[in-house]
């Protein structure tokens, strides 16, 4: 199978829409198959990598924080980075810098960079295909 380079553009903020989970599944699948993936996080999606996301207890579920094991997308990103390393593929994750600044979410997990729409365009030019998953 030919190795491909795929770019994804994500736009939804975390904890808001199942499109985010679907996007992560697509990225995970591509990495497991050995493809290289570039993710450009735009608008609310820049908060996916925010390092201060925290798990919490859930009284309705009757579980403490450890039992609840609330899924935080920053941990999904780290897991995808590890999956890429194991499969010999490459995952690059870039946040739109202006989007980060206006939301104050510049503290991100390791390996996440910041860039501009021009960087996205260059990524797209260097990729086999690009998929935009926009907020609706």
């Amino acid at each position, binding site marked *: 199978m030919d190795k491909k380079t795929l770019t994804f*553009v994500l*736009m939804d903020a975390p904890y808001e829409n199942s499109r985010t989970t679907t996007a992560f599944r697509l990225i995970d699948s591509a990495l497991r198959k050995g493809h290289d993936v570039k993710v450009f996080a*735009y*608008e609310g999606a820049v908060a996916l990598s925010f390092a201060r996301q925290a798990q919490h207890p859930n009284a309705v579920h009757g579980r403490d924080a450890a039992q609840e094991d609330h899924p935080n997308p920053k941990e999904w990103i780290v897991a995808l980075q590890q999956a890429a390393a194991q499969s010999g593929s490459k995952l690059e994750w870039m946040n739109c810098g202006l989007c980060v600044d206006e939301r104050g979410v510049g503290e991100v997990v390791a390996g996440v960079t910041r860039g*501009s*729409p*021009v960087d*996205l*365009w*260059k990524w*797209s*030019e260097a990729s086999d*295909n*690009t998929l*935009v998953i*926009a*907020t*609706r």
Partner: protein
Amino acid sequence: MARKYLQIIETAYRATIEEQDDTCVWIAHAMRGGGADIAVLLRGNAVNYGCKGQDASGLAFGEKRQSHPPDLAGDVAGLIGKGVAVYVVEDDCAERGLERSDLVDGLKPVKRAGLAALLAGYDQVWHW
């Protein structure tokens, strides 16, 4: 050779007050500024972006008055001024009662039935 991009903007007025623009029109401006070969298609409610006479000014919360409201028609006209082809779906305009005279100059009307042929002319189609 650089790819040809078509940005389809369909979801309209997505936080345009907070952002002072439509972020997908904005990204088209930014990519064009970087040298991308780009075109835009306005469809659905986003055809209203081409409508002249919009005025989103006047927002205030307490003593905080918001300056620089979004100017969506101006941003669309700005793209056209940069040589970007901006298409608008005629059928979507008609359904919303928009006449050609309501819209900024330079928009390229396209019929819904002609979209497939239009899309076929681009290497990348991004749907916002």
